[in-house]
């Protein structure tokens, strides 16, 4: 573990440094991230406003990240297939104090409220290998990770990773590929997806590392990120129909490389799956004029060991089925994009419920549900407008509802089983001072948090007390 790099001291200089690094680089392709060095193209070629992808960016991803030149050719070293991303931020939590009415003890919610901080950064190794293979490997240093004792500290780990092989088939006389076939090896369900309506690359693209966030999330929505390894195959037909099947398992393979840095030896540290956890994705996509749409469905079945350290027990089953859609209108001057997704999760506590009923506790650090089965639904909708790809505004809503279950979510102020329900909205303003430098101001407002609008924790804390104002400087080079 690392001590945080003097966060309060270097906060403002960190923000200034990030800004200076980005503005100090010339507009040449040498000064932008790895794939830009590979392709020789600017960010705007593949990204609406990174990380959101344009149709060309989606094609770049689905063809295995292979467009452009290799880092090393017969003519020698061409470019460095690496990139760095840094973020500095300030977070304001609306009500940063919570008071226990029984003891009148005040607890600080956000330990670094209103402080300019170096949030962290990532190192990317991203490149084509040849005409058929390419990859994206991200290693992240989180300067504000929460330790087991609740204090903040630096932590380093492998982030999103996607290794691909792809083959384009065009019959003689065709004007474009009829098929793109590919395979992906990755460590986060939906990380491999080229649309920005699925969880891994969905909005919000960055959030405060210090904000209070709802407890409940479906298993496909980040719960398994960097804890699993998935191998899948996909096909894109006439740039219209996309189909993918993948299987995920816990990433205790190849020396745990795909989950490097995760607390997999800590009780409750990660989610452990058995070996067969299928994932699917079907999408219909259509481009016309400057517009494109996608209508799709995706999902997975995850068989989870209740105690992440014990793989001898039965498993609980989480079945996620989702529908999603994306719309883009992209011109040089005006860009409008929208994404939405609805995930319905059925939770079958085939292991945790019987043991909880029999003994009053679950397996190890595993769940202790009061019900044999629950549901959890999440809905997200986002719309963005960008002017000249430089000035942007985004609005989003989110809504999570689920079964009431005292064993999982406790009881409310009236002693009734609580729900995981949360809802709210996000408003964001963006300024791309340069194509590789983003300054954003984001406000997240909660109308419901962990089951209630008011007094959700029993100590008088309201959902809106967690409203968060987040200022971020985000640079990549």
């Amino acid at each position, binding site marked *: 573990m690392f001590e945080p790099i003097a966060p309060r001291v270097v906060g403002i200089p960190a923000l200034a440094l990030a800004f200076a690094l980005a503005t100090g680089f010339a*507009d040449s*392709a040498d000064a932008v991230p790895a794939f*830009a060095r590979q*392709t*020789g*193209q*600017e960010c*705007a*070629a593949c990204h609406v406003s990174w990380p959101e992808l344009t*149709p*060309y960016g989606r*094609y770049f991803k689905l*063809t295995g990240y292979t*467009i*452009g*030149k290799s880092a090393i050719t017969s003519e020698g070293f061409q470019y460095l297939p690496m990139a760095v991303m840094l973020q500095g931020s300030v977070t304001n939590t609306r009500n940063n104090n919570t008071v226990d009415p029984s003891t009148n003890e005040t607890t600080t919610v956000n330990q670094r409220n209103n402080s300019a901080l170096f949030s962290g950064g990532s190192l990317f190794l991203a490149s084509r290998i040849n005409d058929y293979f390419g990859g994206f490997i991200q290693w992240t240093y989180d300067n504000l990770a929460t330790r087991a004792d609740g204090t903040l500290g630096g932590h380093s780990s492998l982030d999103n990773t996607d290794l691909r092989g792809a083959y*384009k088939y*065009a019959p003689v006389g*065709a*004007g*474009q*590929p009829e098929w793109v076939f590919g395979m992906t090896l990755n460590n986060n369900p939906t990380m491999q997806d080229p649309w920005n309506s699925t969880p891994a690359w969905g909005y919000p693209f960055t959030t405060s590392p210090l904000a209070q966030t709802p407890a409940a999330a479906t298993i496909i929505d980040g719960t398994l990120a960097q804890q699993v390894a998935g191998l899948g195959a996909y096909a894109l037909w006439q740039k219209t129909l996309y189909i993918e099947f993948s299987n995920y398992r816990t990433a205790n393979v190849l020396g745990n490389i795909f989950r490097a840095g995760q607390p997999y030896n800590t009780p409750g540290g990660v989610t452990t799956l058995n070996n067969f956890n299928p994932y699917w994705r079907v999408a219909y996509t259509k*481009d*016309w*004029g*400057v517009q494109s749409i996608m209508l799709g469905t995706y999902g997975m079945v995850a068989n989870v060991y209740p105690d992440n350290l014990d793989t001898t027990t039965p498993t609980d089953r989480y079945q996620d089925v989702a529908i999603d859609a994306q719309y883009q209108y*992209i*011109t*040089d001057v005006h860009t409008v994009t929208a994404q939405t997704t609805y995930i319905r999760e059925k939770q079958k506590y085939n292991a945790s419920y019987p043991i909880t009923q029999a003994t009053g506790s679950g397996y190890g650090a595993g769940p202790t549900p009061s019900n044999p089965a629950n549901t959890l639904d999440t809905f997200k909708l986002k719309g963005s407008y960008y002017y000249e790809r430089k000035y942007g505004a985004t609005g989003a809503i989110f809504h999570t509802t689920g079964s009431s279950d005292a064993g999982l979510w406790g009881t409310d102020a009236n002693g009734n089983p609580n729900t995981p329900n949360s809802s709210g909205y996000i408003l964001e303003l963006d300024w791309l001072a340069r194509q590789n430098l983003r300054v954003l101001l984001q406000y997240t407002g909660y109308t419901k948090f962990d089951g209630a609008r008011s007094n959700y924790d029993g100590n008088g804390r309201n959902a809106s007390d967690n409203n968060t104002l987040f200022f971020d400087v985000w640079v990549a080079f």
Partner: protein
Amino acid sequence: MRNYQLTLFSITLMCVAGAAASQQPAGDKPPPVTATGYSAAVSKAVNLCSTCHGPYGVSVSPEFPNLAAQRPGYLAAQLKNFQEHTRAETAAHDFMWGIAGPLDNETIAGLAKYYSEQKPAPPHPGNPALIAKGRAIFDKGFPDRGILACATCHGSDAQGNLDFPRLAGQNATYVVRQLEAIQSATRAAPVMHGIVQNLSPEEVVSVAEFVQSE
């Protein structure tokens, strides 16, 4: 000869003598097409270029130009200009410098030949009033303002001539952006700059609407 006629004659002379020199070094001709180059070009066109320029060079998005039936000498010159960074308006810089960079001369010649052989993009109907106004500018120019008729170099049907590009069926959005880039000199085209610099925004739109409808 009156002043405006002298101006018009001079511009015509420069145009005939090699207006394309602004996009192509004087004396250059498209490199010869080889079997290897053509094969590589077809693969590149089908698997990469089609992503933005569409199957067979007919683009889906009007932000990207049609390449179908384009003059081969002009196409080759543009790819070289992207490669050498002498064409540097925003889209050229952001998209095409990287695409053209790794191309060898054989592939460039092959691409020029491949797209020149494709069926032209279909005309797009548009605003009749704008089209009529654009047609008049295209056919006659503005002699009193020293603005040469576009047809002089680009052909009576906007089909192109020698290395002067085909404009017929070209996306109006793209044509407007290029004329604006030439007017502001962000796209280096000295002779074209001299011809179009005094066109008003409405006249630019009219011409673009007309050529898109051809």
